[in-house]
């Protein structure tokens, strides 16, 4: 699975569950979720659970930071690195 596939799955999940939008809509993959008031801290917890279940990775406590979870691009890179490590 490459970064684009991961970003695509994340976009679809966010469009459907957080924005109630059509899956065909396009999200800015660099847009900050928190600064742009798209997702709050509960939403981040939901995203952490989503990536753990969807991509079969384990997220450590100290990895729950903005650098890893504040945009589609950041999450994609984080997940990709995790998959490469395993």
């Amino acid at each position, binding site marked *: 699975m490459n970064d684009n596939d991961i970003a695509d799955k994340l976009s679809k999940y966010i469009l459907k569950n957080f924005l109630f939008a059509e899956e065909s809509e396009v999200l800015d993959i660099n847009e900050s979720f*928190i600064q742009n008031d798209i997702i709050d*801290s*509960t939403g981040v*917890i*939901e995203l*952490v659970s989503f990536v753990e279940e969807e991509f079969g990775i384990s997220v450590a406590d*100290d990895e*729950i930071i*903005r650098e890893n979870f504040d945009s589609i691009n950041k999450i994609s890179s984080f997940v990709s690195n995790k998959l490469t490590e395993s």
Partner: protein
Amino acid sequence: MKITRDVLNIEPETEVSKIQSFARNYLLEYKKRGYVVAISGGIDSTVCLYLAAKTVSPEKVMAIYMPEKEIKDEYEFIIENIAEKAGVKVLKKDISRILGEFGCYETRNQSIKKLFPEYNPNWKYKLKISRGEKNINYFKIIVEDEQGQQKEKRIPYKEYMQIVSATNYKQRVRKNIEYYYADKLNYAVVGTSNKVELDQGFFVKNGDGSSDIKFIGHLYKSQVYQIAKYLDVSAKIRNQTPTTNTFSLFQKQDEFYFSLPFPEMDYALWAVDNDIEPEELAKFLNLEKHRAINIFDDIISKRKKSEYSHCEPLLIT
């Protein structure tokens, strides 16, 4: 404006007089005959009870104590003491059976068992906030077995939501009972949250957040203590550590929710509200600058998140 130790000082006598005036006018406006106050044994509800009894005669105040099986028995004595001193009779209503019927304990335990399969209902537990770097908060659960051994784990989304929603039954059941007596006696219900709790969303919507009038909702916690001293609330109550009184393991409020313990949290909120720079708060509270910046971010983020809990139902126009 500069932050100093005395920025939160108030004149208790004047403040009490103002609250009494609002409280009396509320009853006159809505043709109510007295006040219902739910008491927990903590400082906030005790002050509210004293204020109610001071505003109307004590026999026009209904104090209700609603324990459940996960709250320590030690509060019983405190409650009797508070009510006696306020001259108010207190009704004790144990809500364990109602909570059991609603599935409060069972559904919560199911979620805990998913995380700790060996968990049994005799174990104690509590939730704890963990602050990830740069303000991403998440929760951990701590369980304690019969031997006093503790274990902790981060709570995944589904289990977190189920534990919180089940636990919120406690506050909502209590509020139902308060309104039963308010309706029966034609009384108004006093909300006992303080300014910090309301601002930061430390309450349950339609639970402890619901009321007709909030006697201390405009006061920082340290101002509630000043009023408590003026009203001669016993030192035992004034010296207690504020707890959530919701989970079976002892838990301080800042461990569960707030960015800082009391009274530092009061000053941090005051600093945000009075455009004090994080650097100045850091110096005042002897913190690292980055920590003060994180606290500011956390306060603003919780305030934003609490908007949902405060808002009235939306009417389509």
